[in-house]
């Protein structure tokens, strides 16, 4: 059986199958499809969907709903992520699980509302103050839009943090034929709800305390300020140090649980193409086309933008002397690849006119 479906619908379905019970968003092209589908579908399964008065309110509602026991998601585009910024920080600091979908469009500012882009890949990484790790998954197909969204809900619970699903205008709004059997089942862990005991844990630094919900069990407090394990505001130096190391290490020490990539490696190939998101489709097609022409080439599609799947990329780079990184920006992710490439030649294939990268452009770069 096959179906005709766009990425937005797949994201909504992934969220619902992952147990999403709350959504709030604000109309913005090209993410409105997710809002509208959620407004239609969530009530059918007993969930709550709200159109907020703006993006600040929408993500704020999601944080409030999570603290009340919901599993929450919001969706927007670049200009909306700008407005999410302070509440992303609050979710990081308060360790609030949350899924944030960024349907990228060409920026900065209003930019091209109906124009594809991958300009937000560093923005989601560094989109709030403080400089702490963030998790961001990037689907490259409709099928991945489904299961990476479910995966995002799982990781949000595992690490008690906001998790991004980074897609784009083309992937979200283009109807594609998909094999129904191609959707994998993702096991999404249940929320471990704390009852009594401190709502935070900083030792060992990488451990995560269960989320304590409001109105259930012991009374707890959340704060955007530096706080002790009881959730009380503090400037006690060792406690503040422990909190900040914990926020970093709970993710950095468990990268192996997060890192995801789809590698198609050819032994002895001198060239490796690394892409992500909608450009990942072009990477797969270009690798196939190049091989058809007798060119030895490996391909790798990054699925966890953050943390970058460093282990897989290192392995893929063995024996490679040239890495090609196509992306719909001027090399924002290439710099991450360069760091890992350790002196290998890293070449970008870049496009910022609002059109997709042609398969031929990539084939030319690997030839």
């Amino acid at each position, binding site marked *: 059986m096959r179906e005709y479906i766009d990425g937005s619908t797949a994201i909504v379905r992934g969220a619902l199958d992952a147990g999403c019970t709350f959504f709030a968003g604000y*109309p*913005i092209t090209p993410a*409105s499809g997710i809002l509208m589908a959620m407004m*239609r579908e969530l009530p059918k399964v007993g969930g709550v969907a709200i159109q907020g*008065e703006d993006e600040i309110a929408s993500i704020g509602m999601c944080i409030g709903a999570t603290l009340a026991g919901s599993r929450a998601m919001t969706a927007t585009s670049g*200009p909306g992520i700008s407005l999410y910024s302070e509440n992303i920080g609050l979710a990081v600091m308060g360790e609030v699980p949350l899924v944030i979908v960024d349907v990228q469009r060409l920026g900065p500012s209003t930019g091209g509302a109906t124009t594809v882009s991958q300009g937000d890949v560093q923005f989601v990484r560094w989109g709030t103050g403080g400089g702490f790790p963030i998790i961001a998954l990037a689907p490259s197909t409709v099928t991945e839009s489904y299961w990476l969204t479910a995966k995002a809900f799982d990781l949000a619970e595992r690490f008690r943090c906001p998790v991004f699903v980074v897609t784009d205008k083309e992937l979200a709004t283009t109807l594609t034929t998909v094999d129904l059997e191609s959707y994998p089942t993702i096991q999404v862990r249940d929320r471990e709800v704390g009852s009594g005991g401190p709502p935070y844990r900083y030792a060992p630094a990488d451990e995560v305390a269960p989320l304590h919900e409001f109105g259930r069990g012991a009374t707890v407090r959340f704060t955007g300020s530096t706080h002790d394990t009881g959730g009380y505001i503090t400037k006690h130096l060792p406690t503040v140090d422990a909190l900040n190391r914990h926020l970093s290490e709970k993710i950095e020490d468990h990268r192996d649980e997060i890192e995801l990539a789809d590698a198609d490696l050819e032994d002895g190939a001198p060239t490796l193409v690394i892409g992500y998101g909608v450009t990942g489709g072009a990477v797969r097609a270009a690798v196939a086309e190049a091989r058809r022409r007798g060119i030895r080439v490996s391909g790798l599609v990054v699925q966890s933008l953050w943390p970058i799947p460093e282990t897989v990329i290192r392995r893929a780079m063995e024996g490679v002397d040239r890495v090609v990184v196509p992306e719909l920006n001027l090399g924002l992710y290439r710099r991450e690849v360069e760091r890992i490439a350790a002196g290998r030649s890293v070449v970008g294939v870049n496009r910022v006119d609002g059109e997709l990268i042609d398969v031929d452009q990539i084939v030319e770069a690997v030839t």
Partner: protein
Amino acid sequence: MTDTTQYTRQDWQSDQEVRWCPGCGDYTILASLQNFMADFGVDRENVVFVSGIGCASRFPYYMNTYGMHGIHGRAPAIASGLAVARPDLSVWVVTGDGDALSIGGNHIIHSMRRNINIKVLLFNNQIYGLTKGQYSPTSERGKKTKSSPWGVIDYPFNPVSLAIGAEATFVARTIDMDRPHTQEILTAAYQHQGSAFVEIYQNCNVFNDKAFIALTGKEERDVNRIVLEQDKPVVFGPDDAMGVVIEHGEARIVEVADVGIDAIHVHDATVENAGAAFALSRLSHGPTGPTPIGIFRSVDRSTYASDLQQQIHDAQAARGPGDLALLIAGAGTWEVSD
């Protein structure tokens, strides 16, 4: 304004192709505004149009003068900076029900409260047009849209009530299709010193057609339009048979014959107390029935920029002009020599 220059509408038309849906109410408002600017002899170099995001916000491209197409909801903030930095400019904000009342709700009320000299034109079509049909803060309860398939459960804003509550010193309402009335209101807003808020009922023929049919339909409009006129009793309908009385802070519609013309409320937009203006604004829910248009409120208060200039003037008069070098050096500095 100079006496010698004669303008036509063409002087206010830019060379850009106007891109709204065919039949959009925005075309009429654009024409009204261009006509007003020309007829009134406003000099282009003294005017700025600032907008946010939405269909209405394309306006600055089409007015042949200074313009800024900014970001969603923030036009009042940008316009406030402009109006305070250059009090001699006529600063206009073109916005919509989503831009001004949803995402921009905060900025709009504070720009009004401060009596900053900006003219806010709120094109109210009770729908999100640019993002193709989601409900807005002025959409009526129960309305089914693409983002409210089960019906809207929000209570809508009444923009005129909101502006009065936010201390706007000039508050009016007009209708896109009524060009003479629109131009009359624009003239009054232009001449007003301080924050002027004009709600314009604007038909979105694609996503919310006929939302204002009660005031624009051939049969309905004579029954439902309550045209507010300064110092005149508020009467309306065929033969002015209907009228408005205000009792205990509440406006009510009555038959004039029942209460006598002397009992009918005489409209005075210039009274400082906003009670009567607010009571009149509450008649306009929907609008599916009798609804006032015209100037609800027009009172004199000093503007933010004039008060600020006065403070600067007084401070300099009392303490002399500033000397940065002196300020940095202060009294407790000395020179170290070998």
